[in-house]
Structure formats: C-alpha cells, structure tokens
C-alpha cells in the first residue's frame, strides 16, 4: 500500500526537478511561493481555434510537491488562474488536483502568451 512517506521518497528519483515560483491568487492579494523540486512533462504544442483565430496552445503538466507548497502548514491550494514560472517561462494553471496520496499537485497549464 502506498503511503505518503513512500510517495515522498519516490519523488527523489524523479529526474530534472527545477525551482519554480508560484503565484497563488486566493483573493485580491497574490501570494508568492518558491519551491525547489517542480517537474514538467514535455510540452504538447498545438493550435486551438478561438473566434476564428488559431492560437498556439502549449498545454502541459507541471507537478509541485505539496510539502514544498505547504512547508509551513498554510493549507495553500493551487487553483485555475494561478501562475507558475519555471525556467523563465510563465504558465497559467487551468486545473489542479492533489494526487498520489495527497503528496503532489498535478497542474494542467498553458503557457502565457508571448
């Protein structure tokens, strides 16, 4: 049976973890949090059609360890419209789920327009 302790130790073997800056917007006052072990799935580059315009998509998944997001027990949650900056690129959270026995946030994101 997978426990939180096992899940957290398994995160140690994930390659290419990177620091990330997360801006949470639970209310009108944004909260900035720095984490050190985020990781990203390869980008899916595609076009989406909006109002007749074909717009580059770049939908992907970023994972954030909950123990780094909540290193002090603030009870922070990732929500749509929060921002994650990773390796100089800012991504917008479309949806977020706390997965793997509540140890890691799986965020579906799209790159901010540049």
């Amino acid at each position, binding site marked *: 049976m997978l426990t939180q302790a096992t899940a957290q130790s398994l995160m140690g073997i994930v390659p290419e973890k990177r620091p990330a800056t997360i801006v949470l917007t639970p209310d009108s006052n944004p909260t900035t949090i720095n984490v050190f072990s985020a990781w990203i799935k390869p980008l899916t580059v595609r*076009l989406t059609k*909006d*109002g007749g315009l*074909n717009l*580059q998509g770049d939908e992907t998944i970023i994972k954030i360890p909950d123990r780094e997001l909540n290193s002090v027990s603030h009870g922070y949650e990732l929500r749509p419209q929060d921002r994650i900056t990773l390796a100089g690129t800012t991504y917008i959270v479309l949806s977020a789920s706390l997965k793997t026995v509540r140890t890691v946030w799986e965020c579906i994101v*799209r790159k901010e327009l540049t």
Partner: protein
Amino acid sequence: MPGLSNHYDTMTAIKSIVDALSLPDLNASVVQEVAEYQDGQQSLPFVSISPYGPEQTGDELNDRDGIYYGTLVCIIGKKNVTSLEQRLSWRQSIRRKLNNTSLSSLGMNYNLKIEPGNVVEPRPFFERAAFVSGMIVRAFFQEPRS
C-alpha cells in the same frame, strides 16, 4: 496584383483603412491566409486580417451576381499590457470605420457590413492571458457574369 481577386483586394483595402487609423499602441495590421498567432510570430498587439468562411451569394441582376466576401478582422494582444479601455477603443474605432461604407478603390464594391464576434474571447483570456477580439466584415460586390 490589384484587380485579380476582389476578396484579396478587400483585405488589402481593409488593412489600409485600419493602419490609417493610427490607433495608439497598436502595431501594423497583417494580412494572413488563415488567422493565426504563434508565440513570437508578430509584435503584439496587432490586427490579423484573413479570409473567413465561404462566400455568400446575394441579390442578382440581369447581368451581375451579388457576392459577399467574408473577412475576419481580429485584434490579438496580451491582456495586461494595455488597459481594457484602450483595447475596446481599438475595436470601436475599427468597427465604426468599416461598417456601412464602401471601398472607393474597388468599383464593384457597394457596402461593408460588420458581424461582431465576441468582444473578448474567453478561452484565450483565461488560458493564455491573451486578448482576442474579432469581427467579420462582409464586403458586398456586384460582379459581372463572365
């Protein structure tokens, strides 16, 4: 080359009209075959002008056919760089200039009619922090049967 295609000439005429407005903080418009934006492709914000949908047939005369050519005019930019008021003023200026007018440089054109699209497309707004605002211009021509 002007005179080959009324649809193409309509798009270049619309580009001239939009650029002549010299709207503040808006880059020159671009004629595209299909409306698209990929990151870094153009300086933002700009106006994309492209063919839209199929032609529509209109009133027929004894020797001429009425044709409507669709052109998508779409403003693309980042939502936080200019104010909403500024971006809406671009749209208002373009709509006012193009609606119920004729293209004097094109002898077979009788009128332009605007079909407004969403003022702010919601998906790019939420998912890419982008401002996408489009309208369709229907250009009515009476073309000789040949």
